């Protein structure tokens, strides 16, 4: 909407212009109004003679613009962009937070970390946890969202309860699931008892600890994905379904050829944000397992915390954080590439 200053000004410099034109110029995309578009993308700047008055107004507007965004811009620069960059620098340093200055060690942290077999276990844990929670929440959320979209009885109530866990502090969810997983007095014993089995020692054995985290995280995330899918499904164009039904399509084919393609932008959004959220899951790990036993439930996000704030090895921690960052960038890149081929934005 970079044209808005010009057109608004033009109402002063060119009073002959029909006033009815102004609103349209101010918001050239308003009548269509649908898609989220970044400002200034449309309507090329009209070339105009630069009078001193006009120039002064542009400077005044620019000043005001920066004044308004300054607090937010500053916060984002200082606490988001700067740390993302400086973290990479720190990964080439050796530091314990106490010495006055970090020491440059080049690639030593990476060599050290990559040579450590534990690190690869942690990477594997991260990939398994992220992969299972994202895939599980997408499949489960689509199924549950479709089920709720049938609007039989109780769907409104279930939608509310499904979403509620997403609102709770991760620490509370972690505590609740610790209790659920208690092999002696938790619901887990009851459920396994139904099949005549003993409950696994979920959080205290290395075979099960990562799965305990995965289940708890899925429980917290599933309702969010469900509700997004549910909203999107109810929003789909009905005429397409009517047309397809007339053509004899139903059930699976309707899902495969109409619903899934139409939902692909949502799936894309949920998978990108899901990977970013899952890979950073921390509160559940901290409350439920502390990365253990051993490193059986450690992920990269836990490693960053442990190395930095328990072992005070900033170099190693930064190397782990940079690896996490690089993996997430790579995943996002792959997802975007994939989506360019497969995601249908036509709707």
């Amino acid at each position, binding site marked *: 909407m970079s044209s808005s200053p010009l057109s608004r000004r033009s109402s002063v410099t060119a009073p002959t212009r029909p006033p009815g034109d102004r609103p349209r110029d101010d918001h050239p995309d*308003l009548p269509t109004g649908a898609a989220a578009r*970044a400002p200034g993308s449309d309507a090329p700047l009209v070339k105009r003679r630069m009078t001193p008055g006009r120039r002064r107004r*542009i400077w005044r507007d620019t000043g005001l613009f920066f004044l308004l965004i300054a607090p937010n811009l500053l916060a984002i620069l200082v606490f988001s*962009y700067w*740390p993302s960059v400086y973290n990479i620098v720190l990964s080439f340093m050796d530091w314990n937070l106490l010495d006055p200055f970090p020491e440059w060690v080049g690639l030593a942290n990476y060599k050290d970390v990559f040579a450590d077999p534990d690190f690869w276990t942690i990477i594997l844990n991260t990939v398994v946890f992220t992969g299972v929670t994202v895939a599980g929440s997408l499949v489960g959320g689509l199924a549950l969202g479709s089920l709720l979209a049938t*609007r039989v009885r109780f769907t409104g109530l279930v939608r509310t309860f499904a979403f509620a866990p997403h609102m709770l502090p991760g*620490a509370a969810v972690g505590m609740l699931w610790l209790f659920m997983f208690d092999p002696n007095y938790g619901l887990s014993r009851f459920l396994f008892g139904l099949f005549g089995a003993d409950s696994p020692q979920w959080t205290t054995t290395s075979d099960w600890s990562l799965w305990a985290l995965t289940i708890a995280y899925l429980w917290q995330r599933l309702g969010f994905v469900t509700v997004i899918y549910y909203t999107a499904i109810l929003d789909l164009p009905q005429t397409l379904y009517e047309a397809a039904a007339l053509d004899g399509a139903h059930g699976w084919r309707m899902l495969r050829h109409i619903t899934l393609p139409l939902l692909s932008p949502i799936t894309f959004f949920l998978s990108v944000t899901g990977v970013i959220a899952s890979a*950073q899951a921390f509160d559940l790990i901290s409350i439920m397992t502390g990365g253990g036993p051993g490193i059986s439930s450690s992920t990269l996000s836990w490693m960053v915390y442990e190395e930095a704030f328990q072992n005070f090895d900033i170099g190693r921690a930064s190397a782990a*954080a940079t690896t996490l960052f690089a993996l997430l960038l790579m995943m996002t890149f792959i997802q975007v590439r994939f989506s360019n081929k497969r995601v249908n934005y036509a709707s």
Partner: protein
Amino acid sequence: MSSAVPTAPSAPTPSDTSLPTSGPTPTGADPSRRPLWLRIVLTVLVIACGLVFLVPIYWLFSGAVKSNDDIYSWPLKWIPTALHFENFREAWETVPFGRFALNSLITTSIGTALEMINAILCAYAFAFVPFRYKNAMFLFMIGSMMLPGHVTLIVNYITVGNLGLLNTYPGLILPGIGSAFAMFLLYQQMRTVDPEILQAAEVDGAGHWRRMVTIVVPMSAPMILTATLIVMIGKWNEYVWPLISTNTANMRTLPIGLLYLRSQEGYTNWGALLAGTLMAALPMLILFFLAQRRIIGGMAAGAIK
């Protein structure tokens, strides 16, 4: 007018769609034309799925008011024999829960206020103040959502340490006041404000500040409320930053208090642990049940554009 634009037209909210419709649904035929057996099967499935979410929440509530005799018993006691509110007192006495709650309240309220001020000013600038490179600026700020917060922890810890703010309220609050998501929601909303009203105000001599305070903000009030709720929930639930940036019990927030409580009580007093968990979770649950349409609608609006 202000109530006529609850959300951006581009943002479908569940409230638009949660009214019963009689048309065919995407998943099949008209609900009223569905055979009875299918309706029963679907309803049973819906209830079964609901239990997956409901039972753990019930388990939390019931466990918080069970005596230890009820908790440590087999077979499980689904219904407490008596309401045992002692658990809350025990949790409250074992760790300074009142102080945790106060800290959570302070950091959440001030942090939310600051972030929302940032979001409103910034969204207004992007929607109404001309600047040539707005597009690039906008992408730059929205792009910060793609930066994983966990990666910024170490450097933020160092920055806040250098500012001398570790273990203080400003240190807890400041790193969280940058706004991208709420700013985006508000920007979407503000673009729908009728430009003719603003033109008229400008002709009447109202400057940007007056137009923002008297026209744009009131007209965007519903979305501001939605964004405030979402931001508030995020801040209340914040875990890792309060964990590393505070180091004394009197500066901890409720979620960290739970970790502390667990380390004090171990697993021998689940009643108190669950009572503490409920105290940390209940404010958000209440908020959610009061404003669920608004919250779900706002979050869906962020996803479905």
